């Protein structure tokens, strides 16, 4: 099969399912076929190609792609075309780009409901949310519209939608993947990662996008191991920590039961499982909100209508500014919170950073006792689209994933069960730069389970 044939197949499926799922903000058929055609011609010349050459992909719409719309699901950037490629996209230049994936506006949300381009449907139940903010990236992989996609994770934005859509979501360590070209939500927490059908696929994509980039000052000068070589069906000797408070207080009992069942299965496979304590989930969420809103308020200051993006014409500068910043309600809410946090009467940001230090230190200590932490990817399974969730309840979606962002840890979300016909996701966290351990444990899990092989019934 040629890359062109493969790309045609995925384009056709993507276009056909777009009205149902709304997983894309824009489809990039011409660009995809041009890349596929180029790869095919290289292959005919017997050129050496990477394992992913010609495999199509979807890219979350907060990652810059040259010559393509890069909207962040916001009206503010509705007509913005990026003049440059993100580093991660450059590294995947041989992967035909099917389109830019739908998401929560500026990645602020856990439902993909805040997109200015309409909500994304969960392929398992089109009346339910795919999670967010990488909801489009997760839904497209789940629906078989894209073999893999890039997402971003600031507080759980890869792992929670991966759990909701029954796919494999990988958030690498902070600094593993260059953030150059990632439109920031909170620069100290943001990380690009993958949504795939399996851990094996995740290893292939991560191999290409990880690595030091002089264009990102926060990028780590850390050797990238051969990730595929880490895929061994063997967890003997690994110590898995189960955070007792989290499993005991998880609001969805089917989720906590599935995670505990997984722990038993790991124990059968030779891992040692022990209870640990992570008694700061609420504090993590609070710290996250203080830091992420402040950094977002700063990072989004540039959307003023002056040099690019939407501009409200007006005779006064102030009116031009206020009229150009046409953000949705959730973005406005967070910008207000963040601006307040940065203000002279509030030391919210510093407070958040202090809490972050404590939590990071505690996690570091935990990892002197265990190799991995095993916990739910999210406190719920996919919730109905029409459900009016109040913002605080929505923020609670990320409560189990945030510690990894605060401490810069790699984390992996994997399908581990089903409840009422909807996927359940578990999550594993490892010490910083120990993606290898996550890949090993995740691969072992998928060798011994078939949850990741199940397909949503709604989108045959």
């Amino acid at each position, binding site marked *: 099969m040629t890359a062109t044939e493969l790309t045609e197949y995925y384009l056709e499926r993507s276009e056909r399912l777009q009205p149902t799922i709304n997983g894309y903000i824009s489809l990039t058929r011409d660009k995809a076929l041009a890349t596929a055609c180029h790869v095919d011609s290289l292959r005919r010349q017997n050129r050496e190609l990477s394992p992913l050459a010609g495999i199509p992909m979807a890219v979350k719409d907060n990652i810059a792609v040259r010559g393509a719309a890069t909207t962040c699901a916001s009206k503010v950037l509705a007509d913005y075309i990026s003049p*440059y490629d993100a580093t991660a996209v450059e590294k995947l230049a041989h992967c035909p780009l099917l389109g830019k994936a739908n998401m929560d506006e500026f990645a602020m949300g856990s439902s993909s409901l805040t997109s200015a381009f309409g909500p994304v449907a969960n392929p398992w139940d089109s009346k339910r949310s795919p999670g967010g903010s990488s909801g489009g990236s997760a839904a497209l992989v789940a629906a078989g519209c894209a073999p893999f996609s890039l997402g971003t994770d600031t507080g759980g934005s890869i792992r929670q939608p991966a759990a909701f859509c029954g796919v494999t979501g990988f958030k690498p360590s902070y600094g593993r993947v260059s953030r*150059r070209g990632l439109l*920031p939500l909170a620069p*100290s927490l943001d990380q690009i990662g993958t949504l795939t059908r399996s851990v094996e696929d995740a290893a292939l994509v991560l191999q290409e996008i990880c690595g030091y980039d002089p264009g990102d*000052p926060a990028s780590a000068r850390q050797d990238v191991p051969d990730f595929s070589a880490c895929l061994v069906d063997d967890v003997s000797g690994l110590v898995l920590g189960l955070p007792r408070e989290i499993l005991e207080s998880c609001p969805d009992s089917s989720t906590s039961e599935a995670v505990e069942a997984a722990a038993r299965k790991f124990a059968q496979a030779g891992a040692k499982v022990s209870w640990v304590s992570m008694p700061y989930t609420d504090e993590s969420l609070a710290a996250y909100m203080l830091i992420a809103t402040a950094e977002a308020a700063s990072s989004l*200051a540039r959307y003023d209508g*002056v040099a690019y993006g939407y501009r409200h014409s007006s005779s006064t500068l*102030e009116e031009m500014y206020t009229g150009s910043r046409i953000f949705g309600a959730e973005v406005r809410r967070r910008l207000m919170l963040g601006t307040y946090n940065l203000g002279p009467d509030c030391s919210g940001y510093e407070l958040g950073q202090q809490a972050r230090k404590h939590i990071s230190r505690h996690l570091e200590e935990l990892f002197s006792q265990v190799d991995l932490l095993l916990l739910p990817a999210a406190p719920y399974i996919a919730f109905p689209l029409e459900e009016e969730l109040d913002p605080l309840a929505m923020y609670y979606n990320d409560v189990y994933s945030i510690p990894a962002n605060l401490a810069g840890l790699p984390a992996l979300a994997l399908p581990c069960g089903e409840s009422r016909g909807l996927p359940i996701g578990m999550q594993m966290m490892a010490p910083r730069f120990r993606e290898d351990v996550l890949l090993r444990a995740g691969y072992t899990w998928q060798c011994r389970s078939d949850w990741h092989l199940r397909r949503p019934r709604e989108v045959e």
Partner: protein
Amino acid sequence: MNPTIGLEVHVQLQTGKKLFCSCPSDFAAPPNTRVCPVCLGLPGTLPVLNQEAVILALRAALVLGCTINTLSSFDRKHYFYPDLPKGYQITQQRQPLALGGEVETPLGTVDINRLHLEEDAAKLVHTAEGTLIDYNRSGIALVEIVTAPCLTSPGAAKSFLQFLRQVLLYAGISDCKLEEGSLRCDANISLQGGGRTEIKNLNSFKAVERALDYEIQRQRRAIARGEKVRPETLRWDEAQAKTVPMRAKGIAAEYLYLPEPDLPPLYADAALVEKARMGLPELPRSRAARFVRQYGLPPERAELLVATREMADCFEEIAAKGATPLAAANLLLGEVSRLLNAGGELPAAGQLARLLALQEAGSISVKAAKEVLARMSARGESVDNILKQENFFQISDTETLAELAQKVIAANPGATADYLKGKTKALGYLMGAAMKASQGRANPESLKKILAQKLAERPKKY
């Protein structure tokens, strides 16, 4: 009622590139031709710190005697204004690169509060149709140098700036061109009993002095009338020669500083500071002292020579080629300086050394040397080339001069007779005639000697 004055000086670092991207930082390029996604603040771009700018900033901290912070960090300073493409400026608010310096200027010690790196904003061009933005300046590498409020007169402020300019130029840190904005100054001033005002738009050292003078008078009158001096930001209006209140700059007055999450802390360890120090030249003050010591120059000549690095370097090169140091100094401070002030170029040291050597050997006259120098400075020609084309060589050859003397004596019997009768003044006339006959090239001293000798040889019968 002495004024209290503090200065904030922005200096463009001479790195050739911007602070966080590799766009060139040349002046007067066509608008928006020195831009890239980073300095335009396009979505998703990240700043990458220019390491050469760090070295230059460290050098500035060293020459100002500052204490360098091993760990400094960057902050985002937010305000909404179209000159700021990101909605914030990257600066060093909480932990600046350096603190607490002290410099000796001719008008006394000046304390430096802090020195930090920051990026420049874009330039707004207001036209009848609207405001245009030139992003060429956006992201240019600056250091901000803040003095303590320790200056007590406009003259002292001016003197500090002149000193600062001299050392920054010397150390190759900045080209300090006020007219191009690579050195900009804001002044803070208050009198006892009044509020502090900040004056912006000071485009020359003279403007600094005049604006401060004006502001002292204005504040003094206000206080005398029992009025309050409001703390405010003023603009110096050169045409009206007065300070006028500025329009409010940002919509928000609060800068909402945020530790820059895109940039790791700047670690200026001993090795980096040493690297910066290695590139530092000898500074004017110690160089002048050495010139006195090593070359035996009078101190005031040495001071003048070190005023610019080019002149001092040139002097040392000439001296190294064996010229008499004082003669070299006099040449540079006299004729060469005059030519430079008239817009000429500084000739190469080797050429100046050759000229001096010819002059000292008596091969060319002082007058001829001046002419040769003028041509060197104007057209960059070499000494020997000029001398080959024009017959500037001085005639010192005894035989030629004797011949000349004979001719002049023969042609001027009257003057010769007068001289022999004891009218010594007649020798002057004969000298004039001889110089004219040689087109000014005769070595006057030798000629005078030979002429007197030839006259003495005349038979006494006259």
